[in-house]
């Protein structure tokens, strides 16, 4: 992914000439430089990109296997379940809430899938639908408790964390573990299915072409309306950079097994959420609710509906992540969704640049954040360091990310951009 901040930055270019308004002359102010933005606390995705580069370099120095095609292929697949859960966490953080129960909900979803699919013998699609429906219901329930009774989401989902872990253990029964058959489509999707190289390259080319086409259409529309627009050079350069970057990545991964379908699915979800957040009125109302709930309410935004949707999105995405995790493991057991899944997902969202204070963050935060988390985990595993070290390092990185968020926020306040 190229830096998505580039999508919105062209508007900062000098305003179109010939506007009769008295203030547009002032709008012809200097383009905000990158360093200005950074000092002003407008960090965007830069810290996480820099962090990712540092981690990759350090890990590669410590163990030359780290950046091998085989390991990166694995890393991409391993990132997906937690990444999808983190995508849901981004949604609730954006509206200024939190969901601490994503791990439990993902584990419960995996258990429901396994019980219905294996024990009850239902078709896979029905088991998946039922699991999704249950997760959506959980999110709806959280939202109702929050909207009607006014319990903070922190407490509701803390209850959910424990409660749904209990339900998970209960429905798994005394056996405690259910294996998913290897010949089922679910396991194949999560473990074995990779894009054929021609398709992967085609997707890269289509992606770059779509990026250019949408950018050019937008720029043309803006120019027709007399507004500042991105230059052709910028648009072409951006698309070529995407083409080169993704092309190289695909080429490198294809030296091993290639690009997993599951990772493509994750990318599709990220892009879909990115579209919703940046191009729809619902996305704007999510930012508004997270930024100033009272202002959003007075502006006519249905705040309760926005909160409900955010909670439902979060638990539903947690369910998808849980089901993929179980499919990848080919089993749902008592520890599905347990351990560090919960905190890794929340940490990924925050490390990716989603503010814990609400109203700030993008869908790409989940993608980049989870890559950081999984890179640390993968690198330390390659060094034969057990989870003790992984927890410590991940905890340190999380603390660093949250501190960065807090410092950036303070800097925004002092630069008048809170």
């Amino acid at each position, binding site marked *: 992914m190229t830096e998505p901040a580039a999508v919105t930055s062209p508007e*900062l270019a000098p305003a179109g000439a010939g506007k009769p308004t008295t203030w547009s002359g002032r709008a012809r102010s200097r383009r905000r430089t990158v360093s200005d933005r950074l000092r002003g606390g407008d960090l965007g995705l830069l810290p996480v990109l820099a962090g990712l580069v540092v981690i990759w370099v350090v890990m590669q120095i410590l163990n030359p296997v780290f950046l091998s095609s085989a390991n990166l292929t694995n890393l991409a697949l391993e990132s997906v379940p937690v990444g999808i859960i983190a995508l849901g966490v981004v949604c609730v953080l954006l509206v200024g809430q939190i969901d601490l129960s994503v791990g439990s909900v993902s584990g419960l979803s995996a258990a429901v899938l396994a019980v219905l699919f294996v024990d009850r013998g239902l078709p896979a699609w029905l088991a998946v639908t039922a699991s999704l429906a249950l997760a959506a219901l959980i999110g709806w329930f959280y939202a109702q408790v929050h909207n009607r009774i006014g319990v903070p989401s922190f407490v509701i989902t803390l209850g959910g964390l424990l409660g749904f872990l209990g339900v998970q253990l209960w429905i798994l029964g005394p056996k405690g573990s259910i294996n998913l058959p290897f010949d089922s489509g679910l396991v194949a999707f999560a473990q074995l299915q990779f894009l054929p190289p021609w398709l992967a390259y085609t997707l890269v080319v289509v992606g770059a072409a779509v990026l250019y086409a949408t950018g050019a259409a937008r720029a043309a529309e803006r120019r027709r309306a007399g507004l500042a627009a991105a230059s052709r050079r910028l648009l072409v350069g951006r698309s070529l950079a995407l083409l080169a970057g993704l092309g190289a990545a695909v080429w490198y991964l294809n030296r091993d097994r290639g690009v997993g379908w599951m990772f493509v699915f994750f990318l599709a979800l990220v892009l879909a959420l990115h579209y919703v957040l940046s191009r729809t009125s619902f996305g704007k109302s999510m*930012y*508004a609710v*997270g930024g100033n709930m009272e202002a959003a309410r007075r502006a*006519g935004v249905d705040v309760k509906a926005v909160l409900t949707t955010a909670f439902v999105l979060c638990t539903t995405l947690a369910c998808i992540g849980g089901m993929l995790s179980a499919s990848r493991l080919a089993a749902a057991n008592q520890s599905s969704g347990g351990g560090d899944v919960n905190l890794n997902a929340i940490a990924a969202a925050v490390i990716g640049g989603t503010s814990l204070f609400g109203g700030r963050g993008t869908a790409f935060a989940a993608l980049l954040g989870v890559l950081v988390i999984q890179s640390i985990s993968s690198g330390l595993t390659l060094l034969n360091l057990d989870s003790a070290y992984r927890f410590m390092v991940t905890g340190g990185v999380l603390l660093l990310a949250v501190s960065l968020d807090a410092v950036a926020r303070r800097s925004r306040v002092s630069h*008048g951009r809170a």
Partner: protein
Amino acid sequence: MTAESLSSPHEPSGGPLLSLRGISKSFGAVAALTDVDLDVFAGQVVALVGDNGAGKSTLVKVLSGVHQPDAGTVGFGHGTVSIPSPATAQRLGIATVFQDLALCENLNVVENLFLGRELRGLRLDEVTMEVRSRALLGELSAKIPSVRVPVAALSGGQRQTVAIARTLLGDPKVIILDEPTAALGVAQTAEVLNLIERLRERVLGVIMVSHNMADVRAVADTVAVLRLGRNNGVFDAAEATAADLVAAITGATDNVVSRRAGRDRAMGDRSVRAGGERAGGERPADSGTETAHKGDAS
């Protein structure tokens, strides 16, 4: 409806756009408003002044649909209306800019202007929204560096402008501004006062709640004084002196403000007295500009 405001030169012909008659509102045993009348004409700036607890905020909340009056009628346009909710007020065309402005600081100017009424919700029409935002702010001669900066980067006066511009998108007939110049600097206050004059040029009825007598006298056409929840006079802003207003607000010609003014004058140069403000000696009723009393409700 009584044609009680004929003495004011600023009022266009025709009936008032908004006319309150006998509005009363109690909160338990506390009577916040008693039998209050108020008229606002199109293209007129009415300043609503009064001391703390005079009922200004309650009156604003009645008009914006937050509170329901216990008694009295609200005439709007050609009939009487009831305003059971803020949404109803907005639908009628009564827009209120509260003191906290209610802007989302993390969103940019365009997003704030169109929040809750975005064009083409499933694929935002950002170009049209930006063009309309710039046109609107241009009409208001607003000094906003760029419509793409987050509101957090704007000054207090600029934020006030954005908040007022947002209400204009709903095409209101009456705009109520709650303390628009409180907490603003000198230059920013002047900007907001210019903006209020531009609202008058757009033939909107403007109600401006304020504590600042200088601002009130600078832009208002008429000044309605509330005291202890009752009307305490409507003044022509061009003729009323600050002393008249202060006397009406405090309910006493000999008040702490006039005593202070008198003390300053006694210490200062007596010879310039005639050119400046009159000492707080006259009763408001004697000034000849008071046009309405609480007793003449129809």
